[in-house]
């Protein structure tokens, strides 16, 4: 094992983790603000910020999945009603955002977008449920 150049004890480890967490949150928030600015204010085309959008999206998916896998949130103990409510909030937020972004007025188009958003949100939720399930199994195995 590589020895660090300076002594790290449990207290300094906690400080480093706290600072890294804060900086991560600030960075993700800055990415989100940047994305919204480019879309809503500067009206840039999506190919100009696709890379930032992908970094942000994968980061959030993996963050939530990692928290669930490591047992940070007892997802499987959350009432199904709450999970369903969160799912609906995700779909509704995505649909509203899409409608405003593309200035959609045609109900058929809106319904199509709604379907795509539902499918994508469903995939995200499936990934998170699987992460929570396999994380719980891993923890139970170690007990």
């Amino acid at each position, binding site marked *: 094992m590589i020895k660090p150049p300076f002594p790290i*004890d*449990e*207290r300094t480890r906690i400080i480093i983790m706290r600072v890294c967490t804060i900086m991560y949150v600030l960075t993700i928030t800055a990415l989100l603000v940047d994305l919204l600015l480019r879309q809503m204010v500067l009206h840039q085309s999506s190919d100009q910020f696709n890379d930032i959008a992908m970094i942000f999206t994968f980061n959030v998916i993996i963050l939530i999945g990692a928290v669930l896998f490591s047992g940070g949130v007892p997802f499987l103990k959350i009432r199904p009603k709450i999970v369903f409510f969160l799912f609906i909030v995700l779909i509704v937020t995505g649909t509203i955002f899409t409608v405003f972004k593309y200035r959609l007025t045609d109900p058929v188009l809106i319904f199509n977008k709604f379907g795509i958003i539902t499918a994508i949100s469903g995939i995200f939720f499936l990934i998170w449920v699987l992460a929570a399930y396999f994380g719980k199994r891993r923890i139970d195995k170690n007990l």
Partner: protein
Amino acid sequence: MTMNTKLKLARVEKNLSQQDLADQVNASRQTIGLIENGRYNPSLALCLKIAHALDKTLDQLFWEHQDD
């Protein structure tokens, strides 16, 4: 006697500086100082290492009696 005082007394009894104790338990001098000042709560693992280094039990160093 508070936990902090007990820890400091036990360290002084053994003629150890904060740095000496820190070296023995793989912590930093600042951490030992903060524990003695009551400004940092060590983990159980670190408490055990400190108790072992000072030849004391956990109760002798870290137990706090609540006054009635």
